């Protein structure tokens, strides 16, 4: 073996690896999921925690008093749903983490929410369109889950479904009011819809985790739900005189912890007090 780093234009020869190091450096392309039900519950819980947090940013800044109260109501409901789902997730994981441990002490890459919910709240049009697109999906998913063989999941889903139906009524009526309101409101809502559309595909993705939990009594037929969702959305958009975006390309990754840059900043704010006093009770 010749080492001749001094030769002009020459490169040093790398040392021959030992067999153990060679074997160890080869990783895997995808992470193995140990506990699919835990993963799945994180997805459900994180969606609602992140969305609830985004909605709560409107407190005190709403366009009119009545709407400030309505948005806060939805935020409260969603964080409540998240709390129940994350508590069950922690139980399922079996490592002693409760809902607060999961909410406040995981980094962004460990969150499993869909990308659509972590986007900054934007203007009222953006918030309401995002809410509508999510609510329409959520009532369908929770309705399916309320019939799950897994009793604990079914019970939580049934409870959340009632409130979600109310959210859908609220957000869909607002999409219509704004879509078929003034020229300005129409422009803003169409822009929001155009921006958000590429984030809707992820909601109906079906992956190995979904397959695995179906086998454990938590089955959701995402493909079937997507066409129902599309019908509901088309109805509302038509009443709102809005154009359905034709974007084919979707952004995804949240379900595997591959988030947008927005989530990190959101969590910095959300987690700062808790993380500054580890082990403290509040």
């Amino acid at each position, binding site marked *: 073996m010749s080492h001749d780093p001094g030769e002009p234009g020459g490169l040093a020869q790398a040392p021959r690896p030992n067999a153990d190091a060679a074997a160890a450096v080869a990783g895997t392309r995808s992470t193995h999921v140990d506990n699919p039900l835990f993963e799945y519950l994180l997805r459900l819980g994180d969606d609602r925690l992140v969305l609830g947090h985004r909605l709560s940013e409107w407190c005190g800044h709403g366009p*009119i*008093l*009545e709407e400030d*109260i*309505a948005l806060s*109501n939805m935020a409260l409901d969603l964080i409540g749903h998240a709390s129940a789902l994350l508590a069950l997730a922690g139980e399922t994981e079996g490592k002693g983490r409760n809902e607060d441990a999961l909410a406040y002490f995981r980094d962004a890459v460990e969150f499993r929410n869909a990308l659509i919910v972590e986007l900054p709240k934007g203007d009222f049009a953006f918030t309401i369109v995002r809410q509508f697109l999510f609510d329409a999906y959520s009532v369908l998913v929770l309705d399916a889950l309320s019939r799950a063989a897994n009793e604990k999941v079914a019970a939580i889903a049934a409870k959340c479904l009632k409130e979600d139906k*109310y959210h859908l*009524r*609220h957000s869909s*009526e607002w999409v219509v*009011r704004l879509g078929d309101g003034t020229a300005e409101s129409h422009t803003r809502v169409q822009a929001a819809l155009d921006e958000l559309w590429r984030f809707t595909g992820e909601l109906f993705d079906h992956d190995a985790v979904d397959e695995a939990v179906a086998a454990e009594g938590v089955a959701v037929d995402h493909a079937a739900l997507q066409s129902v969702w599309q019908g509901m959305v088309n109805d509302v958009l038509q009443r709102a005189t809005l154009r359905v975006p034709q974007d084919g390309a979707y952004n995804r990754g949240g379900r595997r912890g591959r988030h947008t840059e927005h989530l990190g900043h959101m969590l910095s704010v959300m987690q700062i007090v808790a993380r500054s006093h580890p082990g403290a009770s509040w």
Partner: protein
Amino acid sequence: MGDATRGMSDSQWPLWEVFTQGNRGEPHEHAGSVHAVDAEHALQNARDVYARRGEAVNLWVVPSVAIVASSPSDAGPFFDPGNDKAYRHPQFYKPPRGVRVF
């Protein structure tokens, strides 16, 4: 700090009176008012403001201007049709433009 572009079209929306029924079989009671643009909107707002903690099983909303009220009892048996609103509110009366009624 008023915004000169706030036009006549910007308002806090019309006023509605809200009546809530605490439990089945009970009468509806006046709970207060909300602002909203139409009936569906008023129902939603009323639920968020007056019934979000499960205090009511049913709600009625009525445009405040639609309520016809009697005069206070000490006004005697004569009911003045010109004084038939539940209270005086600028939305119920149309003063000439530019005149401050307050």
